[in-house]
């Protein structure tokens, strides 16, 4: 691919005339320079918000889940809504790194590193909820099938929550490994440019001694390909398993086989929206407009149309099936969603998720960065409401009307959610200033094919036949390197 002919038909993915060194300098600049005031302000706000969230979590663990707004009928609300929301956001990163790699989409390279970072941080934020929504967090480790003194009493492999334990831990660890393996060569670049001894030491540690020899790169590419191949079914299966927390239950509005594809599409949808929100900010603030271009934004917007449409079709299918089934509980569940006391949540979900992404059919909107930013935020709001509607409206009015109740969040519910957003931004802001935000070495592989490559020294012109030295003709020579060594 490095010497594929430059394609004049497609828009360039790297703007301006860049040499390899230019790319290095541009992408290492945020690491090598000091942050501006804005970074400190946003970081400070995020940090305080995070501390507030941590404080409320401590309050919850110390006093009891009663400080949340849950009740005897609605025993999951903001906690699991937020869990699914964060995990869904995380799926875009893996999709970009894995599925777009398998589909050979070169435009992924400018965004995959930051998107995977977003995945890692989103999964960390998501993990807060299954841990702290437990009534007895301190014995939460009992979900692990370890030998114990209770028999041994093992774990329940029939339970979707246990599937979640395996799925989320696999997803998190594999995403982390995939991300880190990709980061190693980039850390090496930063290491080799580091001037201060502290930076040199830190990046030497982080880069694991990466040398950049051909064999290492060959293995690197192989590992990336196989991890992409493993991560693709992983990302599909993880959100499928998360959706089964609901799909395998008996509650009307939950008990539906459409959830696995619906949730996966929705996750990719919300994840890409979050990637767009973050990338539009990052490119401006870190000066990376040449690498994250309108072409990238447009490509992501097309994926948003695709997944948003799948989600929209899924909503309509659910409505149709609830009517067509003739089951009174199902029919009521959906009528209640649209016209009952939470109708405002349902219609927020519908407008944000079904209507707004369709605007991207118009090229002017699709190519507008401002419109994209606004729509991406609406999509994430809409996706939060989708999970809220699924969880709370199904629980608050299910089979027996005597159990029907309203749910209202307490300040602790809200505070922990806001705190998780603070945590996310703390991690992301630190990432943006200490890690290379773009896969800088991967990007160099597509410079010639998708951008204007600037040579730093003149191209040598010769023919191979001309350079076969007389003194070497007829020599059997040493073995070609590699035939004896590994």
């Amino acid at each position, binding site marked *: 691919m490095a010497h594929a002919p430059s394609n004049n038909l497609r828009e360039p993915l790297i703007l301006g005339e860049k040499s390899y060194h230019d790319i290095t300098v541009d992408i290492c600049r945020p690491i090598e320079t000091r942050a501006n005031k804005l970074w400190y302000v946003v970081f400070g706000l995020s940090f305080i918000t995070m501390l507030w969230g941590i404080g409320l979590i401590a309050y919850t663990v110390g006093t*009891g889940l009663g400080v949340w707004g849950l009740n005897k009928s609605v025993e999951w609300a903001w906690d699991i809504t937020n869990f699914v929301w964060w995990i869904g956001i995380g799926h875009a990163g893996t999709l970009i790194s894995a599925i777009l790699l398998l589909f050979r989409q070169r435009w992924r390279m400018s965004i995959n590193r930051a998107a995977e970072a977003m995945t890692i941080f989103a999964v960390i934020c998501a993990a807060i909820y299954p841990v702290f929504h437990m009534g007895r967090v301190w014995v939460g480790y009992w979900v692990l099938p370890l030998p114990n003194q209770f028999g041994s*009493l093992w774990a*329940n492999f029939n339970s979707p929550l246990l599937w979640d334990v395996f799925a989320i831990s696999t997803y998190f660890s594999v995403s982390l490994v995939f991300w880190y393996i990709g980061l190693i060569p980039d850390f090496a670049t930063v290491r080799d440019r580091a001037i201060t001894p502290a930076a040199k030491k830190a990046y030497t540690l982080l880069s694991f001694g990466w040398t950049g020899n051909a064999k290492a790169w060959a293995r690197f590419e192989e590992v990336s390909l196989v991890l992409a191949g493993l991560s693709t079914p992983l990302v599909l299966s993880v959100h499928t398993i998360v959706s089964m927390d609901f799909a*395998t*239950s008996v509650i009307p509005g939950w008990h539906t086989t459409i959830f696995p594809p619906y949730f996966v599409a929705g996750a990719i949808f919300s994840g890409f929206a979050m990637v767009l929100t973050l990338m539009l900010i990052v490119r401006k603030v870190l000066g990376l407009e040449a690498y994250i271009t309108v072409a990238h934004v447009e490509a992501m917007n097309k994926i948003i149309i695709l997944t948003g449409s799948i989600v929209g079709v899924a909503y309509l299918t659910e409505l149709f099936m609830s009517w067509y089934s003739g089951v009174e509980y199902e029919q009521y569940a959906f009528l209640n969603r649209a016209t009952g006391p939470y109708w405002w949540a349902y219609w927020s979900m519908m407008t944000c998720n079904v209507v707004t992404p369709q605007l991207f059919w118009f090229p002017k909107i699709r190519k507008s960065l401002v419109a994209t930013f606004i729509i991406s935020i609406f999509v994430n709001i809409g996706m939060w409401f989708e999970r809220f509607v699924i969880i709370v409206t199904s629980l608050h009015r299910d089979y027996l009307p005597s159990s029907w109740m309203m749910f209202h969040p307490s300040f602790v519910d809200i505070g922990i959610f806001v705190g998780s957003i603070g945590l996310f931004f703390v991690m992301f802001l630190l990432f943006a200033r200490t890690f290379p935000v773009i896969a800088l070495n991967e990007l160099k592989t597509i410079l010639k094919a998708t951008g204007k490559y600037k040579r730093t020294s003149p191209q040598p012109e010769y023919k191979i036949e001309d350079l076969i030295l007389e003194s070497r003709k007829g020599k059997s020579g040493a073995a070609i390197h590699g035939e004896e060594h590994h």
Partner: protein
Amino acid sequence: MHDGVYPAVTAGAAPVVEAAEEPATAPEHKEGDAHATPHGRPQAPVAVAAPVAAAISADPATISTAAANLNKVKGGAFELVIYEKTGLGDGRLANNPWLQELPDPISRVTWDNYITMSIADMNSDDFKFNILNGQEQLSNVAEVVVNGVTLKLPVYASPGQAKGTIGIALGYGRTKAGKTANGIGANAFPAVTINKDNGFFEYSAVDVKVNKTSETYNLAGTQTFHTMMGRAIVKETTLDAYKKDAKAGNEPVLLSLSNGTKDTPNNVNLWEDHPRLNHKWGMSIDLNTCLGCGACVIGCHSENNVAVVGKDEVRRGRDMHWLRIDRYYTSDMTEKKAEEEGVGAIDKFLDMEVPSDSPRVVFQPVMCQHCNHAPCETVCPVLATTHSNEGLNQMTYNRCIGTKYCGNNCPYKVRRFNWFKYADNSAFDFHMNDTLGKMVLNPDVIVRGRGVMEKCSMCVQRIQEGKLNAKKEGRRPIDGEIKTACQQVCPTNAITFGDLNDDTHTVTKHSKEPRMYHLLEEVGIQPSVFYMTKVRNVSASEL
């Protein structure tokens, strides 16, 4: 007893305690009559006033005069009926937190008394009171002025209450009863008068004024939806219909299969069921005999150390009742009516939420149904809830990590979560916070800690005791030997527990009756508890 304070009532009506006269009639006593006193009537003199001169006769003229008198009640004035709640009675045991937290069978409200008023009156221009209550809406507070006494209480919408009448319960407003009862509700005793004609206590009053106030109050109700929404939750029929066909009102639930036939949910199985080789515990609840009195709820609380959570927590929907008695009113809108009149689905369901002006009322005790295909068991990640080979759904408190998925997945919503530490916690200072209160606890049952789920265990401690006793004698438990707490205290024997594998047990006979049905049978989870349809003694072929 009441605090003995009577307002200055009408002069000349002071109760006269005459010297004991010979009682009018001596009651018949039989040998061994437990309720007879040795010497006929009690010794204490009874105030017997002079016989009423104008006896009530069946003379039509008198009746119409009386009716006319009714209509002469001044506009805006109400008739007050003072009543006793089934749990609290006259309030002598108001300091008992179980009784305070026992939901009133009709209103399903705890921890307070209130003014019951008809919905038509509440909607009138004078008032425009909030009809919903609890979580849905705050209740309005009104002042009731009766005989110079003013009571300020929240107003509760009571379907079926006669227009122009209000009701207030006794037993509240105590000030020297103890930490639980003091300050709860308002004392209605001052509104009780002595009838100047016959000296009886007058628990009603006419010409009562109800005044709106701007205050609102959050009544701690445990049920906010009052109709069955067109669902076959409580099945009922009439005596005539039952006599013609014993399965009247009990339509079988059938599932359509892919081969075009239909079958009952129990026969449509994805897999082979676990065998019940020894015991197969089951329970029948006869909706015909259930009065909704609530004794079973208290029995369950006392047997199983169920926590009392207080008014605030009940307001948030976190009562801990393992067993609850749902009360449903009928609604004018039914599926049939909607079809006949072409009412759209949205309007149909909205109308179904509204109880009739003169509704029929049914009670349905609901506890853990011990489903054989329990949805709660499948979803617990740590095996804290499992199924015994005798058909009980087991709850292992010390294994529960509190994910609450089981509670979400229960279609009957019978599981209760310990949101806070209810024992040894001064925020819940009822009977689990001091040594004296704890003497009420049953040592056979553990007290649950914070963060675990609990639910009806079918009094498994009693089952084990019964099995052990029977085993020691080398026999199976006989019918009635093992009684769950709810069964034991039920005054009408509506609840029957026993071994469905034993034909001599009553519950087995019940299970073969045509009136038998399972709640939410169509979900296919095979509950071990079953209900018997309610048969109304009316002359009609259908309700």
